[in-house]
């Protein structure tokens, strides 16, 4: 009886694997920031081309590490690789920007409409403001009823590009933050609980009353978490949105270097949401496997052109036309 079951199992797996055997698989790993969009892209692209792209959302730091170790074909990160990291990966790393996204500050308080500015935000995440009814928060929110409740800060427990974007913003707007904590994919958080990946942080905030955290816009929207309106450089309180991120991108692109490793934080403009960032796919310019090279190039080209139409509905800002042309020529340089 057992033997019969075993034979059936083998035949079943053979049947199912026959479909799998002839499809080329690409392996990638990295940021959770763009994961909702990427998973949509991989699913659609598989329908179009039959190529399977396997992606592990382990955070930007993990993506860079696995890419450097050669364990994956491409990496994904919202924090650009440093010169030292690029050297460690062989020196021929290309950063392909895919979309821009907003980092929303989410909170769980039962009240909607919270407003904060950069300095107050920094003080909360430094643990200097500990209660929701603190006067510094009340000053910015005169029409909200703030309870006397302990603030539970939620940050990332893994190495994250989203953290990089968020802490770089705090470094720009708060000299105290810059001195005490600094910026990076992983920092020594003065206070708070750690969540794993963007989903982890969203999950913790959702389940913890009185908490505040930071996640990519897609996560706050799909989970219907209340978001904070942040005071931008022009003095207006702006909610995170696709339009806010697109405005940030327009402003920041003027200063974008030719290898695309730049930031678009705290841009001037009335509609700009100040905490935004680009996200990149990391590939080697020199490819070893001919078949993989062609597949990679085709996918990247598709992502930067046809794929862009999925961005806005999933809460990401598509790349503007002039940037797309530059990115396409970079993709062509892969050999």
């Amino acid at each position, binding site marked *: 009886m057992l033997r019969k079951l075993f034979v059936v199992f083998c035949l079943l797996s053979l049947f199912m694997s026959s479909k799998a055997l002839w499809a080329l698989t690409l392996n990638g790993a990295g940021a959770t920031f763009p994961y909702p969009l990427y998973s949509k892209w991989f699913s659609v692209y598989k329908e179009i081309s039959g190529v399977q792209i396997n992606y592990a959302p*382990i*955070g930007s*730091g*993990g993506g*860079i*590490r*696995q890419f450097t170790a050669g364990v994956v074909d491409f990496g994904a990160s919202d924090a650009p690789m440093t010169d030292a990291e690029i050297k460690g990966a062989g020196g021929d790393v290309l950063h392909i920007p895919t979309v821009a996204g907003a980092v929303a500050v989410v909170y769980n308080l039962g009240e909607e409409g919270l407003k904060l500015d950069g300095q107050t935000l920094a003080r909360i995440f430094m643990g200097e403001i500990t209660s929701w009814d603190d006067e510094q928060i009340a000053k910015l929110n005169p029409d909200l009823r703030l309870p006397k409740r302990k603030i539970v800060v939620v940050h990332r*427990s*893994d*190495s994250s590009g989203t953290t990089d974007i968020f802490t770089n913003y705090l470094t720009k707007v708060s000299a105290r933050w810059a001195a005490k904590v*600094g910026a*990076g*994919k*992983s*920092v*020594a958080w003065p206070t*708070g*609980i*750690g*969540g*794993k990946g963007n989903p982890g942080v969203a999950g*913790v905030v959702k*389940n*913890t009353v009185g908490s505040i955290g930071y996640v990519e816009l897609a996560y706050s929207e799909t989970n219907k978490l209340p978001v904070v309106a942040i005071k931008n450089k022009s003095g207006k309180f702006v909610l995170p949105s696709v339009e806010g991120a697109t405005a940030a991108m327009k402003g920041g692109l003027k200063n974008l270097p030719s290898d695309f490793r730049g930031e678009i934080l705290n841009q001037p403009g009335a509609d700009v949401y100040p905490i935004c960032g680009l996200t990149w796919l990391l590939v080697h310019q020199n490819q070893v496997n001919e078949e993989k090279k062609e597949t990679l190039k085709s996918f990247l080209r598709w992502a930067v052109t046809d794929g862009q139409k999925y961005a806005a509905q999933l809460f990401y800002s598509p790349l503007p036309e002039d940037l797309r042309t530059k990115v396409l020529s970079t993709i062509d340089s892969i050999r």
Partner: protein
Amino acid sequence: MIKGDTIFRKISFVLALSIPLLFCGLFFVVLWESRLALKTFGFSFFFRSAWDPIKGDYGVLPFIYGTFVSSLLALVIAVPLGLGCAIYLAEVTTTKFKEWLATMVDLLAAVPSVVYGLWGIFVLGPIFGFSLMNAGVLLAIMILPTITSVSREVLQAVPESLRESARALGATRWETVRLAVLPPAASGIIGAIILGLGRAMGETMAVTMVIGNRPEISLNLFAPAYSLSAVIANEFAEAVSDLNYSVMVEVGLTLLFLSLVVNGLARFLVWKTSSQGRIQ
């Protein structure tokens, strides 16, 4: 024919010996991969509180604290319950109810750690938040079967003659247990408790999902914390530098060493009392 025998015996011997050899191999491999971290931090690694991947500063004291406190918390809850249950099963009931009860408690051990974690997030989370307390209560449920079944075995290994002599003198069941059964079983029961401690210390998934992942020592049991196994689960695959990777392996080494001491001690104590050690 004799040749077949010696070959068979040799093969079996080699395979049996491969087990301790594999284990030593594990120890040395882990030691070797932590050499960078060991060289950089030396012994202070185990006694400092630090976790700053940017500056490259690491100290695992908060994790050791979290591992120990959550496990001790689990013991505080699970030992009275488990021991009481074991005494009940070994000394009090004699009916079919006993077998059913024993099976129920054993089935607790069959539920995977990740499922306990899932349950902990949604059931214990609203009560305890993400904290040491949450992890402690969850771990208590998970080590209950270990403490109960090993204690029960230890108690059953006490010779019946001791009980009979007590009963012959007119002792009640409580007095029999207190005077004739517990004293000889004492070291075995302590072994069972330490075994439970070892299990709790090694638990990974359930703890990671409810402990809050904060590398900080706080005396408040409702504050978030971190444990050795939880930080490996979260951050091992994502180590961002060679030093970070070596540190993660060294955390594994710390866990290995602590488990070895605790499990070794427990097994020794349990062996002394029951006739031979058993897999739990």
